């Protein structure tokens, strides 16, 4: 008898919960499809621009998600508190947890895409390759820009085929090209690369493999030998790989790691006696979380970054003054302000807000649609002067986006771990983007053919 009663109660409880889900959604639909999620600043009807955040604060990648979205939110908060929004249009946002899981990200996209209390969506920033891949078609159909800063599909750099996707600042191809250019610099010029040996230690995943053809291309161009060595996920055991490296005795190692693989690689390198200052970590091997677990073995480790750690940039002082001191900071742990992921969030905030600002010069100082904000992204032109105004010299590279070029940057800075922090050891090192462009176009035109996409005429659009 007891069991049947429980079953009835459980059914009722389930029904209530499901009804809540459906009801709250239909309410949202009535209110312009907005979610009943965490809203920020007080709503001012008709004068807000909405940023839906597919954030992840739990799960294995929570460190990255909380840092990135914390920085992004703090920057938008700064724009609201210091400037009263973008030309009077306040920024608003709400979060939806994805746990870095693709289908949760898709669900969040569908939930948030309608706007918030009438404020239209500016752009989506999932910070997840998987989610980005899954929403490319949806966002293109819904006309909402998809920002994949430092990650995403390399060929989406070609805005003629991917009108709504922006792998801003750095794509994987540029990354490896910039690293090779830096190695050339260290060896005394690119012509000194001939006869050198470079090993790429990569994560056994599509992400890890992605740059192989480019490394081969650069090897044949400059005459160095490249060896690709795979570390199966998750990479907690790398003895055999490093013994292979010891036999090979390469001059440099490029580490395309992810998560736990990075500190293990650094530790094992020390064990086999490979000099850690000749290992160069890529964009996902450059955080404090990657080196601290390796302890003293990591001192001297080099990594690339598009967003150096540190709080000594004017924009971070402003965040401190207007947001953190006012007790409105987003980070649960204020000590993490200024770390790698947080500063990437700041950069992402700068680029998104700049796109809104640029779009407003054409469409007026009102909340804009995703399509209008896309125009803004395609006309971002942050030069050295603008960087100075933004207080982000050295934190963000000069970026000029266009209809055909959705990356806009393609340069990285090199940093070296000194045991306590990453010291900047180079200025912006540029990738050989002219060399990469034909490969990107080859891939994007193939995609366009498969999907039946008409390639945009960028020159024609510019004349309009």
């Amino acid at each position, binding site marked *: *008898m007891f*069991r*049947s009663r*429980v*079953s*009835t109660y*459980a*059914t009722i409880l*389930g029904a209530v*919960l*499901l009804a*809540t*889900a459906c009801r*709250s*959604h*239909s309410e949202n*639909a009535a209110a312009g*499809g907005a*979610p*009943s*999620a*965490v*809203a920020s600043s007080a709503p001012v009807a008709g004068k807000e621009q909405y940023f839906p955040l597919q*954030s992840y*604060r*739990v799960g294995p990648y*929570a460190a990255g998600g909380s840092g990135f979205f914390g920085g992004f939110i703090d920057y938008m908060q700064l724009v609201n508190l210091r400037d009263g929004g973008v030309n009077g249009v306040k920024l608003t946002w709400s*979060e939806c*947890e994805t*746990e870095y899981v*693709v*289908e*949760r990200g*898709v*669900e969040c996209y*569908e*939930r948030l895409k309608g706007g918030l209390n009438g404020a239209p969506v500016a752009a989506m920033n999932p910070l997840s*390759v*998987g989610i980005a*891949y*899954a929403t*490319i*078609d*949806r966002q293109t159909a819904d006309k909402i820009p998809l920002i994949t800063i430092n990650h995403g*599909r*390399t*060929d989406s750099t070609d805005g003629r085929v991917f009108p709504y996707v922006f792998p801003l600042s750095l794509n994987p191809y540029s990354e490896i090209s910039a690293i090779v250019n830096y190695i050339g610099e260290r060896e005394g010029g690119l012509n000194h690369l001939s006869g050198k040996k470079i090993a790429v230690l990569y994560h*056994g*995943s*599509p*992400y890890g*493999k*992605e740059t192989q*053809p480019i490394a081969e291309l650069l090897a044949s161009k400059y005459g160095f030998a490249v060896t690709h060595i795979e570390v*199966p*996920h998750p990479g907690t055991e790398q003895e055999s790989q490093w013994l292979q490296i010891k036999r090979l005795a390469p001059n440099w190692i490029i580490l395309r790691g992810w998560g736990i693989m990075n500190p293990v690689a650094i530790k094992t390198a020390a064990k086999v006696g490979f000099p850690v200052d000749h290992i160069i970590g890529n964009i996902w091997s450059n955080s404090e979380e990657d080196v601290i677990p390796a302890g003293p073995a990591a001192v001297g480790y080099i990594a690339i970054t598009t967003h150096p750690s540190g709080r000594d940039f004017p924009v971070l002082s402003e965040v401190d003054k207007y947001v953190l001191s006012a007790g409105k900071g987003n980070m*649960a742990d204020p000590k993490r302000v200024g770390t790698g992921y947080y500063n990437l969030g700041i950069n992402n905030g700068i680029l998104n807000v700049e796109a809104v600002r640029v779009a407003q010069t054409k469409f007026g100082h009102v909340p804009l649609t995703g399509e209008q904000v896309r125009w803004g992204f395609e006309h971002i032109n942050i030069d050295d002067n603008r960087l100075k105004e933004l207080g982000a010299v050295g934190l963000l590279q000069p970026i000029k986006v266009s209809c055909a070029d959705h990356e806009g940057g393609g340069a990285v800075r090199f940093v070296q771990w000194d045991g306590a922090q990453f010291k900047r050891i180079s200025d912006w090192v540029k990738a050989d983007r002219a060399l990469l462009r034909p490969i990107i176009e080859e*891939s994007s035109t193939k995609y366009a053919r*498969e*999907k039946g996409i008409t390639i945009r005429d960028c020159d024609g659009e510019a004349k309009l």
Partner: protein
Amino acid sequence: MSSETAVWTSPSEGESAGAHTRAPVRKSVPLAVVRGAAFVVVAALLVSLPLLVTDYVLSAILVPVLALALAGIGQNLITGYAGQLSVGSAAFMSVGAFATYDASLHVRGLPLLVSFAFGGLVAGLVGLFFGLPSLRIRGFYLVVSTLAAQFFVVWLFTKVGWFSDYSASGVITAPKLAVAGFDLSSPGGHYWLSLLVVAPLTVLGRNLVRGRLGRSWMAVRDMEIAAAVVGVRTGRAKLLAFGIGSFYCGVAGALWAFAYLGTVEPHGLDLDRSFQVLFIVILGGLGSIAGPFVGAAFVILFPVALDQLGSALVGGSVDPGLLQNVEKIIFGALVILLLIKQPAGMARLLHIAWIRISRWRPRQA
């Protein structure tokens, strides 16, 4: 089931629910008429859903529920009916998705549904292969074999570029969805496509488990030696369970990749997904065709509902990270509670609740 509760079991239910008694059917309208009418109403409702609900419900809830439910049926044929433990369903889904993709890529003009069937067939063969050890080993040892399938498939699709048409990142992208000239690229279209695939396969599965093959599966599950003694060809039954179950998983994988996400990467269908499908079956009801639907709806809807409820109740005043963790704890606790109180799964729970409602009469004064 406590004996004091006289449970009514309609002939269509409870094949596997252990002891049950056929209760007398109440006289009034003939059962067949009621059933026929109910069938028509439900079918009409299912088909016309895109006109009734929002795009959000269609593309973020219904399509993944249908795809995972289909995978759940496949898993249930293997585990719930034939009694073979498997944690390879995501691998078979992955094979189905990639095979569908390669078929539609290399054979120009291949109808979508044909490429889905092809994906299912390839997945079925792969499942058959990895089911071979079931002839010799069983239980937890068999899990190791299907685990191998899981790791092998992910490795293969990452390693060999041909499967993903040499896409640099190994991610495949869905071709344009159309059936018989109808464009199905809208959220409603995705739903109709899923329904078009899932509904016939569900009916087929239901008939399969009630037929000779289904009986032999259950005989193998309940006692293999006894089954062999009465003349069931146990090896054949087990292999067929793996083959047919994997076919279902393969088609589900194709749906997941093409109708739902529009893309799939090898790691998107990893061991976690296999466990999710297994949980769907356990939660929904082992040895039941309705179970996977209930289980899939629960696994997908419940976290979303909890999330929306959480942010509606305390949103803004609590750290979002903390809120998320609390929601996970609540979800886990509810799952444990459910399994303690109703080990036979939610389909059973709903069934009992339905019977209690349908038997309810105002108390006589």
